[in-house]
């Protein structure tokens, strides 16, 4: 036995420990599950743990070690991992944090998940999120919110809030999230993690429940840039099951140690002057810029004149695609089915009314309106034209620079319930959305704690399409200054968390939804 906390370790540390037989993969699985059980009551990052699969994977790794075949196990061998609950993993519930899917058991596995497993990661469970990824705080989860490990009365960000909290609390070393308008980067910033949204097409979307098909992209949360790069190596590349996935041959670890000397890094003055950007976040971005300059990068002002239209384009395109993607939840083949209806329309109406939360209903209704005859030409088509302009803006900027430095979110994590107006909540994504619109890669890189709130702040690094290695290289340089992302103080192994904060397991608090039971969902 060992008292090491595996969820706080890096891929290299785990591999080293396995190779030298300091611990076994089985111990990793066992200890990690124990830690999750002990601590997740406080964060509620997990919706489900996957004991059986964890031990199966651990057994494979231990068998490989016994045969001296650890090198064939992949770069993530033994790494404690977990997945956002919109990723299908065969035999697990994939709920998208919605009542609609409370009882849905995946009969297949998403490509991103199977690639992480193929690289040796140990699957520990499924992670909380905003319902169907509609949100920026994880408060819209039908199974109760996730709490930010840095301050349990604050949100972890969203929609991949569970993915961020699980890594920030040291419950796992890596998690996967998905990002449609900032859903990896913003919680990455709120929880102080390396959080990467690769270029659209780098990672297969097959098996990830779609929100905005032309915007969604999967990426990792880690505490080190190197672990993010290892994860991308595992994840990236063409998947015959996703037409929009691309051939990728990049080794994302290759240039991490090259430094930024000679790199040109763009800053966008309009972003720095944006209304709503808090002083502490602004100061951190400027501080990061100074460090990069000192490390030899050239900082160049670039203009993205159409970026301010990204927000409205996003709130056209996202709901339009979501409306269509969520039409399949019709109570017939899977998903919540309201019992006792004599005709199909009333079964549809009741099942979708009860199954979907208010934000999901709002976006479905909005998308349907925006695509209707006559309205299409007023919003949807112009939004796709604006997309062209934004893409051109970025292309022009990248003629001058190799990477752009920007804020991730206008502020640090906020308290539960602090933002209730949906349009105000949408502003959380003001700096991240244009990257999804243009399909570029973007990531959040932690640069310490905000001067006022004492909560983590991330800066955003934005790369040209399929040049994701550029932002990782800059991130590695920042990491050399700030150090790898720490586990949230209260969750450090040396902290005594024997009495977790008195937060009820929110899953029990949702009336009428019974998780994990066979048969019909009861409402």
């Amino acid at each position, binding site marked *: 036995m060992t008292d090491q906390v595996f969820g706080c370790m890096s891929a290299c540390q785990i591999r080293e420990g396995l190779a030298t037989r300091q611990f076994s993969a089985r111990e990793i699985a066992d200890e990690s599950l124990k830690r999750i059980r002990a601590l997740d009551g406080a964060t509620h990052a997990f919706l489900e743990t996957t004991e059986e699969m964890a031990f199966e994977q651990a057994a494979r790794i231990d068998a490989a070690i016994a045969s001296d075949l650890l090198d064939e196990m992949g770069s993530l061998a033994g790494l404690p991992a977990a997945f956002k609950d919109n990723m299908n993993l065969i035999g697990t519930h994939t709920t998208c944090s919605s009542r609609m899917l409370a009882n849905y058991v995946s*009969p*297949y596995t998403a490509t991103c998940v199977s690639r992480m497993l193929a690289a040796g990661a140990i699957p520990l469970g499924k992670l909380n999120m905003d319902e169907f990824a509609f949100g920026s705080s994880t408060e819209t989860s039908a199974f109760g919110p996730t709490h930010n490990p840095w301050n349990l009365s604050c949100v972890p960000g969203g929609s991949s809030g569970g993915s961020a909290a699980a890594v920030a609390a040291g419950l796992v070393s890596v998690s996967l999230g998905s990002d449609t308008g900032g859903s990896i980067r913003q919680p990455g910033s709120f929880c102080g993690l390396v959080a990467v949204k690769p270029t659209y097409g780098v990672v297969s979307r*097959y098996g990830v429940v779609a929100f905005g098909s032309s915007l969604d992209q999967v990426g990792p949360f880690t505490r080190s840039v190197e672990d993010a790069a290892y994860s991308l190596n595992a994840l990236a590349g063409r998947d015959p099951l996703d037409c929009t996935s691309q051939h990728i041959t990049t080794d994302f670890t290759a240039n991490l140690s090259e430094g930024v000397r000679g790199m040109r890094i763009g800053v966008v003055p309009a972003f720095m002057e944006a209304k709503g950007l808090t002083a502490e976040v602004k100061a951190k971005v400027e501080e990061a810029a100074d460090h990069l300059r000192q490390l030899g990068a050239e900082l160049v002002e670039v203009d993205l004149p159409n970026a301010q239209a990204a927000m409205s384009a996003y709130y056209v395109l996202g709901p*339009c695609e979501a409306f269509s993607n969520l039409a*399949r939840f019709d109570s017939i083949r899977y998903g919540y089915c309201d019992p006792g209806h*004599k005709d199909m329309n009333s079964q549809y109406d009741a099942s979708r009314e009860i199954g979907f939360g208010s934000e999901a209903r709002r976006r479905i209704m909005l998308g349907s309106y925006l695509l209707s005859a006559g309205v*299409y030409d007023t919003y949807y088509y112009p939004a796709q034209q604006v997309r062209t302009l934004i893409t051109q803006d970025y292309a022009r900027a990248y003629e001058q620079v190799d990477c752009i430095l920007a804020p991730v979110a206008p502020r640090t994590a906020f308290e539960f319930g602090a933002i209730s107006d949906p349009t105000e909540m949408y502003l959380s994504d003001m700096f991240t959305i244009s990257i999804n619109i243009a399909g570029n890669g973007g990531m959040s890189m932690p640069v310490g704690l905000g001067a006022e709130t004492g909560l983590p702040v991330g800066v955003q690094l934005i790369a040209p399409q399929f040049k994701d290695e550029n932002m990782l290289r800059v991130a590695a340089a920042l990491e050399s200054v700030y150090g790898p992302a720490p586990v949230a103080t209260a969750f450090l192994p040396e902290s005594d968390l024997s009495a977790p904060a008195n937060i009820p397991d929110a899953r029990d608090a949702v009336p009428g939804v019974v998780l994990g039971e066979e048969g019909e969902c009861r409402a």
Partner: protein
Amino acid sequence: MSAVRSLEEVLVDWEAVIGLEIHAELTTLETKMFCNCKLEFGADPNTHTCPVCLGLPGALPVPNRAAIESIVLAGLATNCDIEKRSMFYRKNYMYPDMPKNFQTTQGPVAFCMRGHLDLDVDGPAAKERYQLDKLAVGEERENIIRTDSGYKAHVGITRIHMEEDAGKMVHLGGGEGRIAGATHSLVDYNRAGTPLIELVTEPDLRTPEEARLFMQKLRQIYLAIGISDCSMEEGSLRCDGNVSLRRRGAKEFGTKTELKNMNSFKNLHDGLAYEICRQAEVLEEGGQIYQETRHWDPTQKRTIVMRVKETADDYRLFPEPDLAPYDLSDEFIESVRAKLPELPEQKALRFAQDFALSAYDARHLVEHRETAAFFEKCMQLAGADAATLSKPIANLIINDVTAYLNANEGVVLADTQFTPARAIELVRLLADDTISSKQAKEVFSAVMEEGLDPAAIVEARGMKQVSDTGAIEAVVDGVLAANPDKVEQYKGGKTGLIGFFVGQCMKEMKGQGNPKVINELLAKKLS
């Protein structure tokens, strides 16, 4: 309501404007449109599904290259322009047979645009065309040109687009499996995602016969290029018709109805004919035609309203983000063109030229792929005699073989006892006057039943025709001698009695006398 006037009467006052929407499932492919599930008709329900065609959350479509090749092939075979740049779209509406609740289809630009087929309308089919007799051969009017035997009609094809089929439903608790009155339905998604091509014609058709012939010709083409089994019964070839009427001479289109469930050529014709008569009656009584979908009921011989369309359907069509757009290369299109076989129309032209057949015969020979192939094989076997045997072989196929196949549903020519070699043998027996054409029919039936060669049957049945002039002359003389009164009457002008003499001679010869020789001898001796 029952139609009181005949179609031909109605079409004197009214011009029918007909457009067709024809769906063909690409049944000859191995897999579905967007996933690798097997295409199979009649399998146990829900045994050919996967995350994609069940519309599971997270599943993504990947198009089948062979389906895209098939639709390009269909476009090339129907004189369409192949659009290199096109996209798939999502057509959004909720219906239980659609797993995703949107159908993946194409938008304003389809793979195939602006095609046409020329129809040969002749015989009784041409009668439905208004005032055809006012045209001289070779003269044109609107989209038709008068021919010797009828007319040729030019029918525009608006587009052929690629889409996917829905699942199948069985309705329970109502009458005869009908949806109306059903309390429950069962849904089977085996068919969901079957590659489907939809051809839309211009409103160029004017008679139910033209619609039927268009459908027939298209079916022949699809069968020739091998993209579908085109079974109207099993629903792999389906046709909807849009019909409206306008007064003769009017320019404005009338309100159209959409007609469904015309699942055979006869139903297509009869459904349209009924609907034209129904609309005429409504209009003549001062009524109004509503834009509605109507269902053809072949047992009651009427159309029934299924749904009234108050407003145009709003399907929220938008480009499918999960599928890459198309930018087909010249190489791709040419590689498909190289697979284009000889089409029935070209084959008919070649048959007519190479084997001195009439256009009519040639066209009927190519109506079915297997009869065309059979004919071609016969001509190879005939060798030097091809030119003289072509006509009798064609007659044999068009009349006897076709009648046999029509009478024996489901029978494939290749599975019968009738081989090209036997066909040649039979026709040679006919050509050298060994048997009469009447006997030839008997021999054909015997070949089918007994599986023996024609010569052997003729031999066994002793049915060889007697053409020997000496032997026949003796019989003729005997008959004339036995009936002096009739000979007298004949010579007095009752020439109709020739039939009596022939009959008597044949009777004497137990039906084996060559009627041609008998006729010649009688004519000579009675003059």
